[in-house]
């Protein structure tokens, strides 16, 4: 089974990212965060879950269940929304490259 996952694991890790949403000037409110998928690195394009945007919707979460609502433009959320995306270094990017032999996990301070 291990063999079949090799390249899928690498592809999945290259595409994975984490997204966090907070309110400008009010870091204590939130942050809300979720996982995401990198669609393109340059230009940067990510798809993530919509649940973290609910607290910022100008018209409240009811707008999500309005009949026929299939999409909402970017300005549906308040102006003080701040978004950040973080992803792992790419194998090809600066500071990337495979460093074999180093232990995979470290114990950073959370």
């Amino acid at each position: 089974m291990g063999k079949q996952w090799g390249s899928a694991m690498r592809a999945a890790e290259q595409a994975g990212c984490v997204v966090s949403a907070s309110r400008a000037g009010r870091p204590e409110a939130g942050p809300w965060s979720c996982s995401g998928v990198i669609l393109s690195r340059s230009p940067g394009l990510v798809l993530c879950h919509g649940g973290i945007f609910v607290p910022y919707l100008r018209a409240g979460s009811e707008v999500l269940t309005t009949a026929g609502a299939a999409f909402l433009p970017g300005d549906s959320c308040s102006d003080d929304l701040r978004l950040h995306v973080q992803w792992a270094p790419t194998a090809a990017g600066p500071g990337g490259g495979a460093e074999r032999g180093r232990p995979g996990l470290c114990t950073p301070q959370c």
Partner: protein
Amino acid sequence: AGLEPGPPAPSRGRPLQPRLPAELLLLLSCPAFWAHFARLFGDEAAEQWRFSSAAPDDEVSEEEEADQLRALGWFALLGVRLGQEEVEEERGPVVAVSPLGAVAKGAPLLVCGSPFGAFCPDIFLNTLSCGVLSNVAGPLLLTDARCLPGTEGGGVFTARPAGSLVALVAAPLCWKAGEWVGFTLLCAAAPLFRAARDALRRLRPSAAALAALMPPEVGVPWGLPLRDSGPLWAAAAVLVECGTVWGSGVAVAPRLVVTCRHVSPREAARVLVRSTTPKSVAIWGRVVFATRESCPYDIAVVSLEEDLDDVPIPVPAEHFHEGGWHARDAADHVCCAQRLQWGTPLLQPLRKPPWSWISQSITDSKANRGWKGIITSNTRDNNTGATYPHLNFSIPITVLQPALQQYSQTQDLGGLRELDCAAEPVRVVWRLQRPLAEAPRSKL
């Protein structure tokens, strides 16, 4: 995460990329996902379902819960403002997408998400968990890969073609009447990207260029019927309904089905048995035997009024060896085709058996094909109320086979009646309690 220890992923051990600012371009949902969701979970039983990331007894207001449910099938497209370093990284799509229906039910899946979101990305970023595609209802998919809160939006990938994006996590935890069901709700990626392209073109002309950046679909073209073939043996898993309770059963002969006693406890009770493969049939039957309430072998035997035509009868296994890593490569994968025997109507209208891939956690991974046994109960922690669907009490088929064969050939219930006299060690395991060293003394 239940995966083979393989070569460390290249990104581990090096500092993460700095956080990059981003802007919301679009919030989008997949209408077909909602249509299936409403059909499956929208009826009167809906209030028993929760897809919240909080445990049932966490303090979550009804309003928050309603917000989470409304946002369940919504996803966000973000533009990321890159620094100079990132601009130099490679261009082009990072992923390819599997068309809807291209992945067969039961196929292995890999989920890549970050439990607890941005809480501690050094440790949890891109955590991997594998499972199978357990069930399909249009773009609403189920997997038994274990997902935690924070993995919403994480990608779900195939092993073949390697790393093709199948879906995104919509709800990592599903609760039914306070019990964690152990499946994760996914939204298929292909219909989502089609919705995104459509929305971007309608939003404003300048956004059309973004539509071209949506990842391409690779593999079986769109429009083929959903592949629900699965292996033939899964057809032996039937649905047994006794009044308002229902659960799984296994066809052991054209007119004989074994199910759990807690599904149809009363001998002589009438039950309805449904099978969907090779064709949808519903046949009445009668319970000819059920073990006693106190018996650890929680089984019942149903005799049908008609044949279950063309349903493959599983071949019982004969040997069991405790599993181990060294056996893995030679091991056969053990799969479980079950209708959730605890009576939850998950995907009820479809009534197709959801799959779970439990080869790592079953007690035997020896290279022996055949029907291993029956899962009769999940483990429940009475202190916390949590149920662990991946930790089951199962009855090996070697315990049941002689008695079933005797009854099937001679209608003699003698062998089945002996099951009521299960040995003490079996009782201890079933109760998960050690026998008391000495009988409790009276307090009188």
